């Protein structure tokens, strides 16, 4: 593989700034890699001409002496649920085929402001609903570590892209684990920021109160850099948080002494494959030896987070996806003769099975007569869980869990939707509670597949998580 592709994001930006590489060179290398490894099916849309045009513009800028930008000249991929000019935004759904957004997501504008080259739109589970990237209308994504296995989801394309060295970083979204789980399945780093840390404007909503955009990259330092580039208050996103942010890149620790990690007793009570359990225990030993204090904490209802999640996320999704009605954009069933037909036929033809399931579940739990028992109950349970997390964080700086109970599973191996949902058991509680979490590689498991370790932090404590992860990455053998 070309030498350029083995570099990290941090190294490539450094290299472009000091003239070792040009953005055009780097972008060209990525393009070639994408063509070479197109079987992974990581990208829904590309426009290489436009990518090279962007790279050229940056090279010209550099020639004038302007080397500003955290991501100067680096090709980055964004998930196909983030609005971009030029490239379509389809959320891997037939209902949005050919949709070209007339505006750009805030995070995409930020990437470009930092000098990134937007390389392509990553494949994903349809409307971000899924944990295996098997529900995409553009076909499944293959895990570059082992092509008979899933890359994870819903940001499967983003994770696989990074893993296959097709780009130097990617943006994903995480509603129930959709950044962290594919990161762990593909052996890359993925960070879900605190809810409100990064703007959601221009990101097609799945569950508005749970969705967050986050970085995925080859290592922790890269992840921090990409995180710094996209985070910030956005006045056009009323849920984004307006507080002082200090950059996280490069702020790494010499020692972990003084930090405390919590072991959630209820997590260890969950079924976990042996290879995953071993990797977790090894990681815990490493941190102990590095001076981290471990405390036992209890989050009694952490295992019910998944039930809260399916009620809340489906309800919001059912409402958010109602706008896909064949009237203003997207697919309109050609045979529709009445408005009613336009709605029903376009949506029935345009949505895949998993999306229909979630919409039905969502409308059920919101419907008259069921609202109190399901939706209202779920919001109250969410409050209970938040209080339990708050109590746990009084005693520690981070919680440690595996990202997933298994390594990447083979295609088609989940028998029922529920079985698929239950594989999110460690990631979902984080979205319900709203805090940040990172997944990073911590060894190999069954079939030599990567295992991901998850660290969960208190609100806006991404810095701590990045530091703990980076230390492990640097020092653990």
């Amino acid at each position: 593989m070309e030498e350029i592709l083995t570099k990290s994001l941090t190294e490539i930006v450094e290299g472009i700034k000091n003239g070792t590489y040009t953005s055009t060179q780097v972008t060209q290398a990525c393009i070639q890699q994408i063509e070479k490894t197109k079987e992974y099916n990581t990208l829904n849309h590309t426009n290489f001409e436009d990518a090279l045009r962007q790279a050229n513009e940056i090279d010209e800028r550099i020639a004038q002496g302007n080397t500003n930008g955290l991501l100067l000249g680096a090709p980055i991929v964004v998930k196909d649920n983030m609005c971009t000019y030029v490239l379509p935004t389809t959320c891997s759904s037939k209902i949005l085929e050919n949709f070209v957004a007339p505006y750009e997501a805030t995070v995409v504008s930020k990437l470009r402001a930092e000098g990134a080259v937007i390389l392509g739109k990553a494949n994903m589970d349809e409307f971000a609903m899924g944990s295996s990237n098997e529900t995409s209308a553009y076909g499944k994504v293959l895990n570059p570590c082992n092509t008979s296995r899933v890359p994870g989801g819903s940001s499967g394309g983003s994770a696989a892209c990074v893993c296959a060295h097709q780009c130097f970083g990617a943006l994903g979204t995480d509603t129930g684990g959709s950044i962290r789980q594919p990161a762990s399945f593909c052996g890359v780093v993925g960070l879900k920021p605190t809810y409100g840390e990064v703007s959601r404007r221009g990101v097609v909503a799945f569950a508005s109160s749970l969705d967050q955009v986050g970085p995925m990259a080859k290592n922790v330092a890269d992840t921090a850099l990409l995180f710094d580039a996209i985070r910030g208050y956005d006045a056009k996103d009323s849920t984004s948080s307006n507080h002082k942010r200090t950059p996280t890149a490069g702020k790494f620790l010499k020692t972990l002494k003084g930090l405390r990690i919590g072991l959630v007793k209820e997590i260890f009570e969950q079924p976990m494959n042996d290879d995953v359990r071993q990797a977790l225990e090894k990681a815990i030993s490493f941190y102990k030896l590095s001076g981290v204090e471990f405390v036992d904490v209890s989050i009694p209802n952490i295992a019910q987070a998944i039930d809260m999640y399916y009620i809340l996320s489906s309800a919001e999704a059912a409402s958010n996806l109602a706008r896909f009605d064949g009237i203003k954009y997207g697919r309109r069933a050609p045979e529709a003769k009445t408005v009613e037909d336009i709605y029903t036929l376009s949506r029935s033809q345009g949505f895949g099975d998993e999306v229909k399931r979630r919409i039905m579940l969502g409308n059920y739990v919101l419907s008259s007569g069921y609202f109190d028992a399901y939706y209202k109950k779920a919001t109250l349970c969410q409050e209970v869980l938040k209080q339990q997390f708050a109590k746990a964080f009084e005693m520690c700086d981070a919680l440690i869990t595996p990202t997933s109970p298994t390594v990447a599973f083979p295609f088609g191996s989940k028998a029922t939707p529920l079985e698929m949902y239950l594989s999110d058991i460690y990631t979902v509680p984080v979205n319900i509670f709203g805090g940040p979490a990172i997944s990073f590689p911590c060894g190999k498991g069954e079939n030599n597949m990567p295992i991901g370790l998850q660290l969960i932090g208190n609100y806006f404590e991404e810095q701590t998580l990045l530091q703990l992860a980076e230390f492990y990455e640097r020092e653990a053998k």
Partner: protein
Amino acid sequence: MNIVSKEDVLHIAKLSKLQLTPTEQEAMQQSLNEVLTHIQALENIPTHNTECKNKTFGTLRADVVENSMPQQSILQNAPKQEGGAFAVPKVVE
């Protein structure tokens, strides 16, 4: 145990503007029942004394006009348009 009946499936499909084949209806009923059965676990969490304490309030936007999107952009993905408007079959009020 069937939490969701066949009629429920039809009613919710109508609310969702989805048309399901009989096979799809059956599969939907099955998966909904499976998930809703699992969700019953929430009944065991006591919440009668729980109040959603609100700690964060939002901010308001100043009433100052911002540039609108050009009509062309608004319509650029329209399946059918006419005279600057989105066109649909006759709507009966």
